[in-house]
């Protein structure tokens, strides 16, 4: 635990020095929670945690499944992609001039034509929207648990996030 070469100015290891209760003064706008209140608070927070964890898991699983289907379609439609050796290089698909859907209109057309790359892009969009959805669920959960300060803070984040998508022109 204690390093022999430690310079003397550093504080000793172990728990940080405790500040006496009296010195706290006007430290927090809220009073100290009683053990019962603290327990109820923990239960509330845990409900929000479970809701958010569920949203993240559903988003992740949905996007992986859609991406996998898209990759499958891509390889099914282009048999030459499947070769382990051959003249076809991946560079044709990853150069700056490669075409793939990057607007909602193009994505819709790609999906209508059953194109694998369109399905992959749809899966990636589900992945990108998962954190946004997670923030939205946070707003609702905190409001439902009557935690006004946290609900407002989370709502602010949601507004900035949605605003950024509109500013991008999406």
């Amino acid at each position, binding site marked *: *635990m204690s390093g022999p070469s430690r310079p003397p100015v*550093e504080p000793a290891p*172990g728990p*940080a020095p*405790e*500040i006496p209760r009296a010195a706290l*003064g*006007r*430290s*927090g*706008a*809220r009073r100290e929670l009683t053990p019962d209140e603290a327990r109820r608070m923990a239960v509330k*927070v845990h409900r*929000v*945690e*479970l809701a*958010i*964890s569920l949203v*993240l*898991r559903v988003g*992740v699983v949905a996007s992986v499944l859609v*991406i*996998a289907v898209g*990759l499958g379609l*891509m*390889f099914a439609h*282009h048999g030459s*992609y499947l*070769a*382990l*050796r051959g003249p*076809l*290089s*991946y560079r044709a*698909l*990853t150069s*700056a001039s490669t075409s*793939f859907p*990057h607007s909602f209109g193009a994505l819709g057309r790609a999906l209508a034509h059953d194109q694998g790359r*369109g399905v*992959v*892009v749809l*899966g*990636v*969009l589900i*992945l*990108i929207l*998962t*954190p946004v959805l*997670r*923030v939205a669920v946070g707003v609702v959960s905190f409001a439902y648990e009557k935690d006004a300060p*946290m609900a407002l803070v*989370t709502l602010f*984040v949601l507004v*900035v*996030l949605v*605003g*950024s*998508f509109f500013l*991008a022109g999406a």
Partner: protein
Amino acid sequence: MTPLDFVVSLALISVAAGVLGSLVGLGGGVVIVPVLTLLYHVDIRLAIGASIVSVIATSSGAAAAYVRDRMANLRAGMFLEVATTTGALTGAYLTTLLPVRFLFVFFGLILAYSSVTTFRRRHVDAPLTVSNDRIANYFNLHGSYHDLAEGREIAYKVVGTKLGLSIMYAAGLVSALLGIGSGALKVPAMDSAMHLPMKVSSATSNFMIGVTAAASAGVYFIRGQIDPIIAAPVAAGVLLGATVGARILGRTASKTIRILFVVVLVVISLEMLQKGVLA
């Protein structure tokens, strides 16, 4: 190399990127961008688009477990997102105003400094038991987590929210300006400035980086930087890796995570300094 070889090999590398990213709270972009540009010679614009996808994948994949297991501090994370998203939005407007080379040197030095402060805290990271931080008390940002490596519940108090918020704002700004993962500044903000335990800092950073990345992902999609054949193996591999990493973090000693983070941070800061000085 045929498309199939490309997809399979990139997916395997992405699994490793997901494990590392979810352990240190930086996301998979740290590994994905150099691999795509140096190993596969992919256009840098497409590599950055894939990096954004990998950061969101690490974040969502790992945070699902971190939030459920209370390893991430949900309230502190969501509270600090106010600063990161605002910073990211400001950064999008400043892009044309500031010289990029100067920014790389400036933030390269800041990351070098934070790697030193993070390293020095390796002996003194005992959690605080009291806090006189008014903001932290009002929003009740304090928490506790179950440390599987030590086999006990560890309660901690949060301090320095104002400094934390300022660094988080800078983190959002930098990620929008330079396209680097914002986790490099988020972890030191929580560990050094706000005194959250190292593993909680890493898990909470993981939880937050998805939202910061999502704020700029829309732009990357519209600009055509998200190429499906790159994004597909990256997203799938990183998600798998992040799920594995999330299981490892709880069982690993805090000090190991700290050293691992410092090593990665030193590499990133050298990369940035190199870009700023030589480019």
